[in-house]
């Protein structure tokens, strides 16, 4: 096993969605920079969109929506706890991103006049732009990486950031998951684009990697940012999504809704007005699932044959193409019956909710020289286009920052400590297999952290996660692949502890199901209309604190404020007026 010492101006960790965009934009900004894109898998097929994506869920297109309208809608969908400046930066720049993707060859649906064919899925505005041929997305990104001469390193898993004496980022460390070679990469600036913490909870199926998220996205970026001293925002606003039961892929309302499909209860009745993923919608979904009207289904069996064929073509060839195979195996056919749905395991993901490493409107984290973008960065409800747009901001701003800084040195003590930590499972004989420890850890996340959240249960969870810290020291890895899994168990444990502490700190309920606390059931704006941040304090302990919500750029009127609290369909008119 060798140690490789490298240096780059800009290092981007994660080659899925935001990462390639950040690397390309850093190079475009300053072609003289040495830019490295590093991935634990292979950038050709890595990240949440490894097979493609079937549409943009948040396209703010002139003539169909305005940046102001979108910013307000997400403010409401996220119960007011947003930095409108970061939302506005996204909403006003993302159309330029769409036009650039269009020039790069991404095929968006257009009408007969050549205008983008935007659809309405959100509660208030119209922002969904289908990409029926979105399976080409990764190839298109790869072409841009080649064009701009970004250097790529695959199969290296990054485990810790290097910092200098002032706490600025100084590079990244990791190892090759096939050879176990150790990497020390000095860098003037690092951009983290590591995706969601998708292996926090255990899927209801019990299959360890049957997660909603691509399981490579284990939460690496959250843990690396935490250990480097960065602040993480609103982690208690968990990601929980409505999915096809067992298959655990999206149903997916953004595709089926505009074509006439909807979420129904066991009686085949609609119970929510809007299928857009929000905590409030998940709360109604959860209540229906638990009620006598449960479970919940995707209803398409009332649609015309040609519509169903269109839906099948989109859903079975883009984001999760094995879905057709799943339905065939279950003998379920959209034409004949409703498809049973369930809720996902819990995770962190700003791309769908609002739990992320804190960033401002320039994609800067609270650690100097460290940027973040995509599912792991705190701009709420970002989805794929948010990842691209903030990847662009991160790349351009990091390029500027790199030009003004000398190459930092690597702290020898940090390198020695990390090398010892990483290699420990290879040197340990007869210990616990990583998969067993991961299974138990994630099963306990389900037992103690899954909403409805209960204070005493979360406290027990913390005790268990602390015990698992000792188990992790007993893990042995028989080869570099198992070593990767062993290191992932450790970062998943860090995320589990963050999830518990962040959830315990906010003593109210907010964001519907995402942070429903049974023993603090009401929303309490007087005490908790604020962000909550979590960081590693001077003593190395996890500490939570309040941060005021940044002044709004756009005021909400009273009716808008409560729009997402009125998602349930009330059939009885009298009940509605009571």
């Amino acid at each position, binding site marked *: 096993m060798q140690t490789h010492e490298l240096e780059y101006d800009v290092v981007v960790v994660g080659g899925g969605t935001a990462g390639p965009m950040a690397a390309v934009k850093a190079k475009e900004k300053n072609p003289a920079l040495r830019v490295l894109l590093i991935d634990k*898998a*292979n950038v*050709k*097929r*890595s*990240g949440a969109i*490894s*097979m493609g994506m079937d549409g943009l869920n948040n396209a703010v297109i002139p003539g169909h929506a305005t940046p102001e309208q979108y910013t307000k809608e997400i403010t409401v969908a996220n119960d007011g706890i947003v930095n409108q400046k970061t939302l506005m930066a996204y909403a006003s720049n993302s159309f330029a991103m769409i036009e650039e993707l269009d020039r790069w060859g991404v095929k968006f649906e257009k009408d007969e006049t050549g205008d983008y064919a935007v659809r309405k899925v959100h509660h208030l505005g119209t922002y969904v732009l289908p990409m029926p041929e979105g399976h080409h997305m990764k190839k298109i990104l790869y072409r841009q990486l080649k064009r701009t001469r970004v250097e790529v390193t695959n*199969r290296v898993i990054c485990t810790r950031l290097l910092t200098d004496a002032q706490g600025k980022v100084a590079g990244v460390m990791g190892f090759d*998951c*096939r050879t176990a070679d150790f990497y020390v990469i000095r860098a003037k600036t690092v951009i983290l684009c590591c995706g969601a913490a998708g292996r926090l909870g255990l899927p209801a*199926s*019990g*299959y*360890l*990697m*049957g*997660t909603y998220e*691509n*399981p*490579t996205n284990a939460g690496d970026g959250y843990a690396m940012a935490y250990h480097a001293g960065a602040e993480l925002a609103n982690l208690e606003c968990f990601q929980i999504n409505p999915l096809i039961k*067992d*298959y*655990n892929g999206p149903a997916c309302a953004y595709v089926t809704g505009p074509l006439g499909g909807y979420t129904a209860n066991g009686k085949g009745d609609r119970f929510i007005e809007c299928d857009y993923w929000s905590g409030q919608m998940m709360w109604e979904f959860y209540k229906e699932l638990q009620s006598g009207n449960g479970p919940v289904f995707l209803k398409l069996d009332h649609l015309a044959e040609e519509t169903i064929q269109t839906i099948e073509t989109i859903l079975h060839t883009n984001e*999760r*193409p*094995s879905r057709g*195979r*799943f339905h065939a*195996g*279950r003998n379920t056919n959209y034409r004949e019956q409703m498809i049973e749905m369930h809720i996902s395991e819990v995770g962190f993901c700003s791309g769908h909710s609002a739990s992320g490493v804190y960033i401002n409107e320039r994609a800067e984290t609270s650690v100097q020289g460290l940027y973040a973008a995509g599912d792991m960065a705190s701009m709420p409800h970002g989805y794929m286009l948010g990842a691209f747009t903030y990847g662009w901001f991160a790349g351009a701003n990091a390029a500027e920052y790199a030009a003004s800084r000398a190459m930092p040195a690597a702290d020898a003590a940090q390198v020695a400590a990390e090398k010892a930590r990483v290699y420990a499972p290879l040197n340990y004989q*007869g*210990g616990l*297999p990583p*998969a067993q420890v991961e299974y138990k850890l994630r099963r306990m996340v389900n037992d103690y952290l899954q909403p409805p959240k209960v204070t005493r249960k979360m406290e027990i969870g913390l005790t268990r996660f602390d015990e698992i810290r000792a188990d992790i020291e007993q893990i042995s890895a028989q080869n570099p*692949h198992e070593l*990767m*899994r062993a290191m992932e168990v450790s970062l998943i444990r860090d995320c589990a502890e963050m999830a518990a502490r962040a959830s315990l700190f906010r003593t109210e309920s907010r964001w519907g199901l995402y942070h429903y606390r049974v023993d603090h059931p009401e929303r309490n704006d007087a005490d908790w209309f604020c962000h909550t941040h979590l960081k590693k304090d001077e003593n190395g302990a996890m500490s939570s604190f309040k941060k005021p919500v940044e002044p709004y750029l756009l005021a909400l009127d009273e009716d808008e404020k409560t729009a997402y609290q009125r998602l349930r369909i009330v059939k009885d008119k009298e009940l509605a007026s009571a």
Partner: protein
Amino acid sequence: MSYTPIYALQRTSAPVTVDEEKCIAHKGCTVCVDVCPMDLLAIDMAKGKAYMQYDECWYCMPCEQDCPTGAVKVEIPYLLR
């Protein structure tokens, strides 16, 4: 006297299988191994054929889609099927 730790096996049926007649790994092809996000596939050097080494599958399908000879098949893992 001390107890010797041992590992007991638990068999699982691999969701990814390879048609060895079609697989051209013996000619140097490693496409399926390269594209698996979870790094689960490997080449059996003795046979010169690809196979699934670890059952940690996300049933995402790049291995099947990108195989130049159509030799790889992804099934839904049994627990989810």
